[in-house]
């Protein structure tokens, strides 16, 4: 069981993702934009971040950059994004070891990615390379 923060501005999609991950036995927190998500993980780190990219206020890329450097996400990030942005976002995030799924997301693919991230810590590997070496509130 992992503690997962789902960030998505569309409330229906947000509920759907939460519901799916809860059904897999995870503890799920929800946020509707990047800023709310950042505050949440700064208050208490999560294992996995599942985030949309296009969101009002702070978008997914800014969120990831901000929280990963701070060590607020312990195991890794899965990004869900539009099918037409998918390739570009995937390439941009590949270097950071972030997996990107196109929307509408495949529930089984999402579970697989989440499970592999959850397992990665047990194996002692680092799923996510911090983007910056600055020590943030979670380090």
């Amino acid at each position: 069981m992992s503690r997962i923060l789902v960030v998505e501005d569309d409330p229906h999609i947000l509920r759907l993702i939460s519901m799916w991950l809860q059904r897999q036995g995870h503890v799920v927190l929800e946020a509707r934009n990047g800023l709310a998500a950042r505050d949440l993980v700064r208050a208490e780190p999560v294992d996995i971040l599942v985030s949309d990219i296009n969101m009002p206020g702070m978008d997914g890329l800014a969120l990831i950059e901000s929280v990963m450097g701070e060590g607020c996400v312990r195991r890794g990030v899965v990004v869900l994004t539009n099918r037409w942005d998918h390739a570009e976002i995937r390439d941009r995030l590949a270097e950071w070891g972030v997996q990107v799924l196109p929307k509408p997301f495949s529930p089984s693919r999402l579970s697989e990615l989440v499970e592999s991230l959850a397992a990665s810590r047990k194996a002692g590997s680092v799923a996510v390379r911090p983007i910056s070496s600055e020590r943030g509130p979670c380090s």
Partner: protein
Amino acid sequence: MSAQGAAITDDLLLHDLVGGLSMAGRGGAAGGAPVEPLSVGVVGSVAHAPQPPAHCLTSCLAGDVTAIGSRGCAFLISAARNQADATHPGVGGRRSSLANCTKGFRVAAQVTSIGGQAATVLTVEGPLSAGVPREGEAPAEPGAADLLGRLDDAARLVQRIGQMLEENAGFANEILQNYEQLNLIFDLTQQIANVTDVREIEKLLMQRVARLLASETVSVVGTDGRCRTYSSKPADQRSGRPAASFNPADLAQAVDFVRRTRHVRVAGAGGRQIIAAPLVRLDDKVEVVVADRSPARGAFSAGDMMLIESVLAFGGQIISNTELHERMHRMLLEVTRALVAAIDKKDHYTSGHSERGGFLTRLTAKELGVPPAQQQFMEWAGLLHDVGKIGIPEEILCKPGKLTPDEWEVVKQHPRMGYEILQPIASLGVILDGVLYHHESPDGSGYPEGLAGDEIPLVARIVHVVDIFDALTSTRSYRKAFSIERALEIIRAGKGTRVDADVAEAFFRAFDAYRRDHPEDFAARFYALPETECSHVHS
């Protein structure tokens, strides 16, 4: 189930519920101060949690109290139906009961269900306006006359919300399943775009089906009853027989049903189930896809049946189209070869000339960076370039010795004749250019139109070089074949005048690479050139 998730759901629920109870209470209590429920508790969560006086708590609620609010009574958190019944003997089913709190607070309990779980709704009533009664102070008497009626309203509301939650979960399931299908279709489309082999497409499809249905193996039962069995793990492929875990009687019955009705069937009551669905292939052949899964994974649902049906309908369409495409391609090739064989018969060339023409044209086109689809057309141009010879009288084509100028003029008609033969086949396009212009030279000295330089289509320039090479390396009635090296030299000497320089260079590179990298193929094609009985050089 996560605590966080439950809280999210129940917060929404309780927000509505408290609102609903307030509405229900607004009718006013008979003869007393208006009362409102202070708090409502549902199994697993808390909303609007006022702090109750401790004595109230203990006297009202003997159950497992895990949350204490700030005003009024608290409520049960983890009461299951039985416990609630025990606490409030009158409560059960649709009945509700009241319990008097020592300080005048009243608690009513209603057992209901939310989202399929037993839930106890506790309505704690106190004089809101009067605030929390202090120790020793007499509490205002709540107007409790219609509390039972309000409680019924509350219970109905809770039930309605429970139904809505269940419906929501149902919709969510359906959406998730649709997402999965949509992704499968996107993935398959993408993967299959790069795969032209029907077996490979089938393998990809079945592996995905196995994963979606949480099956370890999936078998495709052919029309002849033979099976092709695929595993969700790509490394573990078997074939020829169905998965060992299938019950033979269930399998036979399900396969028969699906063949007859073309509908999905789940068979095998109790123990290990199988699901069978139609895969309709080309010519309306119905094959049956059968999958099972371990009983631990649960029975196949209506959703699983819909999933396999839609995925196989889509996959079957792709497979049929690919098969149709392959069949058409094969047919076209066979017709082309038949045509080529007809020319070669007439010319007494062996089919070697046309075959080599096609092969070398493709090799050179590839070297020049021509896109693969165009390479295919150019290969056909190489194969068919001499088709017009079919219209040249045999006595000229096979005349031993030198041709007269008039006879030569007749031979020179063959590119145009070939063009005219093939021209009705509109889709041949680039092939026609190759046939009509394969005797044109860059310096304008060729025929039939005397085109020069870039006026000559690329395909014709390639076929021209290839044709000269093959003619030079073949034995004719009036001369022996030149050696390959000598033929290459002759072409090199004609660069820029007789043959296009860039094309000739590409031909040399492609030819050398082929000779170096595939010595055996090369020897078979170019060292075993059969003697030809006749034919005049026409390059």
